[in-house]
């Protein structure tokens, strides 16, 4: 699945909406995905590509949640298994297992890292005022990774902070 | 369109002069020293020549002398770019057939204003 194609499917304002999907082009859009049964989301502008799982090349002596590196059009991209990273569910690699490649541009650098998730589910339109702070206790996902929660129908979606996801990958290795 | 030959061994000055002239609607051809300038002058017609004085291979004064020998450049305005505003330099330019001189440093505005004295 190519994010470019997904984006093309999104009608511009004034055009008819795709059946069953409510697009508000003026709000922020998030890509939601599954880790076990839980819903998570990242800012869609950071999503570079969604790829199917392929066995990466191992990085010697790396922590277990860093699966290795892959070649994405000539760029060496590290692959992090978010399920292992957050200890959510089983890290199994099936046909539906996908890798969401996220690019985050900070002032000093641009970093591209792929994250293994169980499945990609939807594109969500969110008004910033609908984002609620996450409760400050419990959970295997550290507070620094969470931007907030949103309600989507019956479910709660956790919005992850891409910058932090990538930053911590960098530092956690020195142990 | 008014066509100008810009001769200077310094990339930055040449670029600057050329860019300034282009943005004012002139057409420019660049040459990196007198010899280069002379060969470009022989292959095309120009309405104005702007040349540095101190250059390797062939200096601006010699270029000027050579150009005046060419039929097509008998009346073409030739301006010398110079930092030496001494009369000595000016006389040497004059006797070689230069039309006038532009004293460095100059800014784009001054350049455009000045060349109006010799071309449209």
């Amino acid at each position, binding site marked *: 699945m190519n994010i470019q194609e997904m984006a093309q499917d999104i009608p511009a304002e004034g055009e008819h909406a795709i059946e069953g999907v409510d697009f508000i082009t003026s709000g922020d859009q998030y890509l939601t995905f599954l880790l076990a049964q839980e819903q998570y989301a990242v800012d869609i502008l950071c999503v570079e590509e969604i790829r199917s799982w392929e066995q990466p*090349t*191992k*990085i*010697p*002596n*790396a922590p277990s949640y860093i699966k*290795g*590196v892959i*070649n994405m059009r*000539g*760029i*060496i*991209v*590290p692959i992090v298994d978010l399920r292992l990273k957050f200890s959510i569910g089983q890290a199994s690699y099936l046909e539906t297992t996908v890798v969401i490649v996220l690019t985050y541009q900070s002032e000093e*650098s641009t*970093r*591209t*890292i792929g994250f293994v998730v169980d499945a990609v589910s939807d594109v969500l339109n969110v008004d910033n005022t609908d984002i609620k702070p996450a409760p400050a206790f419990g959970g295997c996902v550290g507070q620094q990774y969470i931007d907030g929660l949103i309600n989507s129908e019956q479910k709660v979606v956790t919005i992850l902070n891409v910058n932090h996801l990538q930053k911590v*990958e*960098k530092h956690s*290795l020195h142990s | 369109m008014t066509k100008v030959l810009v001769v200077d*061994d*310094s*990339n*930055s*000055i040449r*670029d*600057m002069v050329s*860019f300034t002239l282009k*943005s*004012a609607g002139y057409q420019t051809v660049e040459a990196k020293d007198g010899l280069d300038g002379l060969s470009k002058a022989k292959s095309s017609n120009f309405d104005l020549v702007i040349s*540095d004085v*101190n*250059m*390797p291979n062939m200096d601006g004064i010699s270029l000027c002398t050579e150009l005046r020998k060419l039929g097509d450049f*008998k*009346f*073409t*305005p*030739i301006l010398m*770019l110079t*930092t030496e505003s001494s009369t000595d330099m000016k006389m040497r330019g*004059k006797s070689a*057939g*230069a*039309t*006038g*001189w532009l004293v*460095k*440093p*100059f*800014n*784009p*505005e001054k350049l*455009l*204003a000045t060349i*109006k*004295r*010799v*071309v449209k």
Partner: protein
Amino acid sequence: MSIDLSQFIPSFLEESFEGLELMESGLLDLQRGDNETIHSIFRAAHSIKGGAGTFGFDNVTEFTHLVETLLDEMRDGRREVSSKDTEILLDSVDCMRLLIEAARDDEEYDQDKVEQTSKRLAETLGDEQTSADESRSKTDVEANNVCGYTINFIPEHSLAKTGNDPIFLFSALAELGQLTLSADTQDLPALKDIDAQELYLSWQLTLYTEADEAEIIEIFEWVEDECLLELVPIKAPSTTSANTSSTESPSSPSSTLTNNEQQTEPDSSQKSTQDIEQPPKAELVIDSTAEDNNITSKTKTKTKTKDKGKAEVGSIRVGVDKVDSLINLVGELVITQSMLSELGNDFEMEKVERLTSGLEQLLQNTKELQESVMRIRMLPISFAFNRFPRLVHDLAIKTGKEMELVIKGEQTELDKTVMEQIGDPLVHLVRNAADHGIELGDVRVANGKPRKGTISLDAYHQGGNIVIEINDDGAGINRETVLAKAVEKGLIEANAILTDSQVYDLLFEPGFSTAAEVTDISGRGVGMDVVKRNIQSLGGRIQVKSTLGKGSSFKVHLPLTLAILDGQLVKVGTETYIIPLIAIVESLQIDNKLINRVSGDMVLYRLRDDNVPILPIYQLFNLATECTEIDKALLVVVEADGQKIGLMVDDLLAQQQVVIKSLKDNYQQVAGISGATILGDGSVAMILDIPGIIHMALEQAQQAQRVKTDGNSSVTAEVCL
């Protein structure tokens, strides 16, 4: 019109630094009466001055002006070239560099140094300089009640031959105010006598303007020798309005303007009056100058911010021939590609031969393209070498020793990145040679050597590498002194027996310095250990040879480029790794008889006279492999830091060139890995960092040692690694 000058500044800076290098090398070679060199030095200074003025680096212009004046005197033969002047000029080059760098980085510079040098320059130039300063204000502000001029302009008949055309002068005048003119045709000869190339007219012009005499004369500047020019001020009538204008003077141009306009009508009583152009209002002129100032100040600030961003990018100047060859190759590639895609459109088996040849062509194209692209990054090593003549020159003065520098192989090409990073280590090695190697003149003579010492720099290609040699014919390295020092520093045991090369390696140990006292030349806190580390980080190595009393030789081996390396692909478990060929000594099937186990589980392999420690990669990287038996595995013997080590791998695969990709971009540096590459099948393979692996193994061994020999004293550690 606003033109952003800052876009030309990077190229001006680059040019200036090149110019400074040219000046410096020229000055070092400067002989008396060597006019060509003086000319080129002068030209470089002149260009810098001109550019600096144009782009607003006034302090550079000011300083360079002094330098230029001195050089001009030399150029004209008014001044003899003396070594004293050359020294001052060399210092001036330093100052110019300082000023330009400060301008580039928008930082402070060493003002004392610049001031001192400019004082010395001024002193050298003597009184001439003070008088040489141009007196700009030719004309004082004229009496205020002048409201215009009558201009008599009688050009010589040959005026047109200088390329000047009066019509343009008149339109320039018209920009200053309101202009009326009349032509005088009395000199015009009869039609048959007219020479089309001559100018027979003269003019009388009347210009009502705010501008002063100097501005008008400036317009005629280029023709003043070919014409008769008379300027007669027109006094404004002493009406009340004129008086107010004079008292308010420059601040209220509008009132004078109205005054002018009123004046225009009655005065237009000429015979053949013609209005050249509707004159633009004086106000406008003033406004536009004000705008000018704004623009310049704006561009200045812009420049600063922009430059900061650009400083890191770096640029490379590529010869047009290299670019042309690239374009040609790309052209060929496009042809091959279209041929192949056409072939693919309706492919049949009988076309397979054409496919094979097409693919071969593609391979050839790609290879040539790769080589051409690499060549763009290759620069002659003279870029790194050209600072050394000056360095040795300065070192000779500082140390009081006589020495000369011989440079060979300066056209040898090297990757730009490698070049940039090898500069400092080379400087250190040359300093070292001058400081510790070359002896004082008297000592040399006493030892039967020529009084003048020689330091030579040589660069050449060897295999896929470049070798840079730094040789001196000095005292050589005294083995005993080094040993004594190493013992004193606790680097070795007092009774240790070391080979010559092991002794020389001690020089690169952190904190080792043989100089009896730290001089300000080589003892700058940067030791030889840093030199070695820098060279290693470039994937290179350094060798030392020395003969006591005869001299020393430092050989630096470097890869030609950091972007591509020749590698040996090896298999460990499911993973493929790449070992740089440069590091490989040999690869062999393990012979069980030659394996020796010492001190517990240290495994040594007897390779002729050497005992090489065996390091299983699967252990080092925690990989699962079935091939854990030493005698079934293959051994790749690699060397770094003069230490050989046997890497145990499952299998040897192909040898091939690989493009190095950084792991740091999206990840981080990994111990034992220098980078990654993409193999033919699109998969990623890690490139082994041999010095890093040896370091890792050493640490692991030491850790194991500590655990095991807790309480026991052991001497085997040094023997192993």
